[in-house]
């Protein structure tokens, strides 16, 4: 009998969760653009989650139906990653360029919303920062994500922590505009709350929903698929 080579061993590879892969990819893009990654807690005070961000007491987000409160309303589960930017701004002096990513929580659970999802945010503060600069950075991020031939549009929106506020849409292959991120010029009230002279400095901020990006990039229709921990699903992301 001739020498026989046994079958090759094909090593079983696992995978990082597709949401973490997408989050890391976004953070890497921002890091390469010069944003420094910062971290913060998921349990926050109302002060950092709302007040410092100019989200007033009567804002709908502060009602019990939108926000998870813990320990007899002493804290909240952060509803966005923006409090990380607040904490970082309080510890730094401009010029600053921070990015943060992580879990956020909203009291919501239906076919298109989950009580926990992921955001990646960025903030840039310096002298003479304008809306025109914001547009340049957003275009660079989106072209990094979706390709250089991308068609992008900006339209007015509303966030209490930015003014002017905008949403950026991208043109899909099917010819439909898709909402992709929110952004804006940091509201001077927020700068003042963080002890930054709003007459001298200005800046912009933006935030992306990681699940939204992952759904678009992988063609996943149902957001809930990400959190079933189904190995048939996760096994595709090796």
């Amino acid at each position, binding site marked *: *009998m*001739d020498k*026989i080579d046994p*079958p090759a*061993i*094909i090593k*079983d*590879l*696992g*995978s*990082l*969760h597709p*949401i973490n892969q997408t989050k890391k990819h976004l953070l*890497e893009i921002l*890091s*390469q653009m010069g*944003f420094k990654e910062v971290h913060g*807690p*998921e*349990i926050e005070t109302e002060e950092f989650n709302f007040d410092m961000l100019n989200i007033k*007491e*009567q804002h*709908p987000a502060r*009602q*019990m139906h939108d926000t998870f*409160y*813990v*320990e007899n309303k002493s*804290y909240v*589960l952060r509803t966005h990653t923006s409090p990380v930017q607040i904490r970082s701004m309080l510890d730094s002096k401009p010029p600053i*360029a921070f990015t943060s990513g992580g879990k956020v929580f909203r*009291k919501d*659970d239906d076919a298109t919303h*989950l009580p926990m999802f992921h955001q990646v945010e960025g903030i840039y503060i*310096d002298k003479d*920062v*304008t809306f*025109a600069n914001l*547009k340049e*950075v957003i*275009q660079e991020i989106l072209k990094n994500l979706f390709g250089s031939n991308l068609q992008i549009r*900006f*339209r*007015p929106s*509303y966030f209490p922590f930015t*003014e*002017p*506020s905008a949403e950026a849409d991208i043109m899909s292959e099917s010819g439909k505009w898709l909402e992709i991120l929110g952004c804006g010029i940091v509201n*001077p009230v927020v700068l003042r709350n963080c002890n930054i002279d709003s007459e001298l400095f*200005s800046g912009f901020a933006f935030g992306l929903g990681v699940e939204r990006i992952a759904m678009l*990039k*992988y063609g*996943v229709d149902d957001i809930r698929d990400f959190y*079933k*921990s*189904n*190995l*048939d699903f*996760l096994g*595709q992301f090796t």
Partner: protein
Amino acid sequence: MKIVYNDLINFFSKKPTKELLSKKLFQLGHEHDIDGDIYDLDLTPNRGDCLSLLGLARDLNIFFELVEPYELFKEEIEKLDLDFENLSPDECPCISFLEIEIDGEIAEYKPYLENFFTILKNNKVNFFTDVSNYISYELGQPTHCFDRKKIKNKLIFENRDCSESFKTLMDSEIKLHGQNCIFSMGDEIISLAGVMGGESTACSPDTKSALVECAYFIPKAIIGKSLKYNLSSDAAHKFERGVDANGQIEVLRRFIKVVEDHVKIKSVKIQTFSEGSFKLKNLPFETSKINEILGTNLKDSEYKNILEKFGFFVKDQIIVPSYRSDISCQNDLSEEVARAIGYDNIDSKPINLESKKIQQITKINKIENFLVSHGFFEVINFPFSPQEASNSICIDNPLDSKKEYLRTSLEFSLIENLLYNERRQKESIKLFEISDLYSKDLEIRQEKKLGIIISGRVGNNYLDFSKKLDDKYLNQLLNFKNSSFIISEISRNGLKTKKKDKIFYTEILIDDIPDEFTDTIKSEPAPIRFFNYKPTSQFPSSARDFSFSITDTNNYQEVLDHLNDLKHENLKHSFIFDFFENKKNNEIKIGVRLVFQSTLKTLSDNEIEKSIVDLLKPLTRLKGVKIPGLNLE
């Protein structure tokens, strides 16, 4: 908010097309869908002033010249002497009442009023309420109509602690609690102010005399009330976002005019209760500041023109119109300019950010990559748990009352993930999760932990197929020196499972994983690969094992190549689980497992058998290759 195209273009001297109007609404930030002649708008919460035909038309005046198409009642109106007291002027700084009595029957509605009900599919209620609803659509100011004959005692408005029941005009009984703005008459609450009126004083089709209340409630006084009592209220939606603080009299004059268009008016009286006059906001006129914010080169005249078109009065200062409660600083004004120019027409400009090309690999990155390279899958779980530990943090308003704690361990979540996959016939399960966990001592404590769970076969290859995942496997994998961690076997008692494989679990603080261990991991993160994911099947899979006997070794490699390249629409995956070379008998044995699953249905035995024939028959035609016990003819 739904509006009719023809209703809106009545406000302009030149009538724009539906498409042009849509484009300009988008430019102004008024996102919408179009269904025939109806625009279904999703307005941002700061633009309460745009929740009407008039409001949108005022905003669109930047592109299309505004003409006010509606008529007001111009005649002098007698003063009403209403027995009313406002006990909470902070919540309601200004309120007006119109007493209106009609004489005769309403034959049919004029087209503008009728269209509001037919085109927008609104329900008619009674004449006065119908006019009230139309006025809200046209001008954005909610009004409430009481049947005048039912207001027999002193009317009081106040913001107070309530515990009474209240029957709404929609016939629902609600139990009031906490602070509420209410109208009361004697001991009876007759209206939940700014949200919904009560049944006892509501107008009916027989009502000939109405008392129309028209107020400015501050948003804070109304916000959250309709949700609190599960009431669907257009009025609350508008008051929460802010109505014109100064527009009540004009609205009531328009109310009278609409009534007059339909029926003879017997009498009208009006009365306003106000805490002084409303003060308009002033802001400095600083074109340079606007250019600083936007990065534009706007001239003074251009800036002034934009502001005036939006309804601002500009001289030395900018006077903000009373309906623009959202404008309070230069950044707000810059947004007006950006909307007028068009966000897409502002040129982008680069910034001086120092780009970094080298990505730092963190300790966590290394641990993740190490586990992935050993066949582990990362999972992410929600933090909500039914399990209370002594140091658990309790959620005040959980989504599910059975999961009211934040997890203090990853164990429970990972067991659930494992059982979920066992129910889907997975035989080798290796999962991990890295997450921050929160507990309380004297204060909130945050720890980042790694949880690992394993059960079943070590791997899907002939070397590992018969080996089971166990504590030795985990110990060898996590070969930490100078660090101790506990691997525990999870009992299957109490778990809803028929599986017998042992489950092993470990949870480690990331900080306790020695750097000596992670430093040795040669870890280059795999570049992210985006691809089109395939939906997973909801139907069961079915496994079939086959044993090949190869006595002509010349065909061995062909068999191997064929088995490594099996493809079929019903084949989910396959692998060689056994290999044996019997040199004495000059025979090679190969064991192959084929796993079948369809995304469309549960496969029948016949369908599986047919797939097997398609896949394996070519091999049995090779000389010296057999599958003992299997007839594929």
